[in-house]
């Protein structure tokens, strides 16, 4: 198990390193930010001065090394646009996104009982309805369903606010939307963001349940006279959780990037909007920081998932951990 975790750690670090190169190169290729900052009247000398201040005159590898050196200390430089430290910009916005992601992840967990039900009673009308709905949920682009939700719930019905984050409270210097208004602001974007993963969970839970319920070990548990409740909640659930946990790690990261679109529509002040603004203004440091942050969170979540996976599945935990 120790070796299993160490291996995952090493893999994670390598992945982060590769991503840092890709992110850096890609962003480098986007274009010269000086073209945006400098106006038409700028003299070549002024442009050069600007390049020098931003550190863009040095060779690419030097820029990369400087970047890595700083990134290790969570220093991603200064935003070209706002002249604020990037880390400050990001950490200002991060709580909002994390909140949104977690909130919508929790909503999507509803898919688990729905899917289990559909797997246990596959022929019932309700199960069929759940399954068709899940296909529909798969097919809804979040930006469009977000717009429609705003139209219906904010514009016509006026039940829920459509933009912003509402009031927040500050705890230990971090703002939380733990107010009534804050929570109301979370509902629409949270639900819209959750739909895809909800559908995914329904389908995974249902298909795995169908499969596991017809295994010999479930039949054997019944033959021992174990109650049906225990058969389902202990024997079947333990087994279907293994594939679900693996996929959910990746899905959390998907939610994080999905937040990018949702934040855009709901005018929600998270890091996703920051990233879109950075793309539009070629704000390299912000964009690189965004990518690194997202992938780091993803890697971290997956590491946790791997460990969890090992705990749930003894075949991994007790050796024989073959990839």
């Amino acid at each position, binding site marked *: 198990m*120790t*070796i299993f975790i*160490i291996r995952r750690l090493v893999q994670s670090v390598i992945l982060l390193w590769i991503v840092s190169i890709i992110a850096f190169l890609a962003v480098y290729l986007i274009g010269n930010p000086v073209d945006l900052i400098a106006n038409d009247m700028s003299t070549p000398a002024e442009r050069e001065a600007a390049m020098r201040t931003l550190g863009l005159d040095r060779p690419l590898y030097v820029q990369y090394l400087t970047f890595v050196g700083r990134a290790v200390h969570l220093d991603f430089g200064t935003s070209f646009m706002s002249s604020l430290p990037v880390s400050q910009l990001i950490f200002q916005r991060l709580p909002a996104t994390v909140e949104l992601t977690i909130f919508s992840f929790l909503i999507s967990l509803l898919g688990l009982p729905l899917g289990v039900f559909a797997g246990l009673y596959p022929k019932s009308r309700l199960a069929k309805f759940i399954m068709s709905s899940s296909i529909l949920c798969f097919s809804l682009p979040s930006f469009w369903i977000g717009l429609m939700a705003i139209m219906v719930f904010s514009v016509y019905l006026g039940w829920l606010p459509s933009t912003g984050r509402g009031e927040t409270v500050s705890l230990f210097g971090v703002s939380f939307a733990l107010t009534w208004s804050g929570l109301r602001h979370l509902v629409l974007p949270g639900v819209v963001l959750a739909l895809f993963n909800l559908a995914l969970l329904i389908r995974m839970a249902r298909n795995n349940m169908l499969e596991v319920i017809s295994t010999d070990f479930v039949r054997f548990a019944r033959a021992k006279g174990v109650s049906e409740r225990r058969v389902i909640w202990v024997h079947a659930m333990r087994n279907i959780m293994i594939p679900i946990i693996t996929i959910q790690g990746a899905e959390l990261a998907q939610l994080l990037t999905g937040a990018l679109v949702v934040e855009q529509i709901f005018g929600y002040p998270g890091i996703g909007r920051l990233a879109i603004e950075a793309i539009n203004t070629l704000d390299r440091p912000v964009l690189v920081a965004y990518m690194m942050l997202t992938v780091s969170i993803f890697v971290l979540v997956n590491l946790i998932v791997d460990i969890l996976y090992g705990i749930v599945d003894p075949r991994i935990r007790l050796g024989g951990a073959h990839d």
Partner: protein
Amino acid sequence: MQLDTMSKAPGASSNGAPPPLLQTKGISRVFRQPIDLLERLAVRAGLSNAKEQVVRAVSAVDLTISAGEVVGLVGESGCGKSTLGRMVAGVMPPSSGQLLYKGRPVAGLSARDAAEFALKVQMVFQDPYSSLNPRMRVRDIIGEAPLFHGLTTRTGLTHYVSDVLTQVKLDPSYMDRFPHQFSGGQRQRIGLARAMAVNPELIVCDEAIAALDVSIQAQVLNLFLELRERFRFGYLFISHDIGVVEHISDRVIVMYLGRVVEEARTEDLFARPNHPYTQALLKSVPKIEKRRSSFEAMKGELPSPLNMPTGCPFHTRCPHSMQICKSQIPELTDIAPGHKSACHLNSG
């Protein structure tokens, strides 16, 4: 079919006779699951006790099969009989040792001769479901190789395939069906037809009837016997079913944990089993004649192939285990004409 061109007297006189059809010399197969760099580092640092996992599936086996001979290969699961069969059939390369075809090392054959050798030794597999390509019609399953190797022509294919199908007692009009439209017994016949279609001299049957129902087993076994009469195939008949092996084989080889422990003519082996493992194995086989018997339990469990005992592989379960058995691997020696056994009891 051009089977008539290769008729040879089975078991031709031994002195001055042509070299045996197929021979293995010290053939071995090792499967390794190497540990990666990280694990090696962890072992150094004392964080882990990971070891490279090495399975010696087959260890230094000498085997001789004459033309037209039926050799039975018995042993329990994991004893390496299947791996040995695959190496003989050329499906799996040996880790070390030599395979000789009519006295010539296969490794040294020219590409042309190697292809000829490949065709001369064919295989019939255990699983009637996965051994036939589900996406191909019977015509192509059987006809693909003969067509490719020029044993028939595109125009002659139908005739060729229906010939082979008739040999295995299947209706040639089923030629355009897919495997899933046949029963298990019929599929095994198709598998046999596929092997026969390239005019082999030796057919390795790897548990070829194990997956079939009892009444179907007899049908397929009879077919094996009948085709052997007609075409003088040799068989390497790999099975865990000792009754079947006794019925069909001229000679029987017993394997345990990757090694041959005993080898003899069938009558001799069943009448006078020498090796303690063979004795225990034969005693374990339920027989319809043994009515209301108390079953005798052989002691202990089969050791994990990852953790092979030192010395004689059987010493952990052997009732006669001696000091020497723990340290020294017994040689396979002649104990009677044509009867070999690998046991320290014989040398004492």
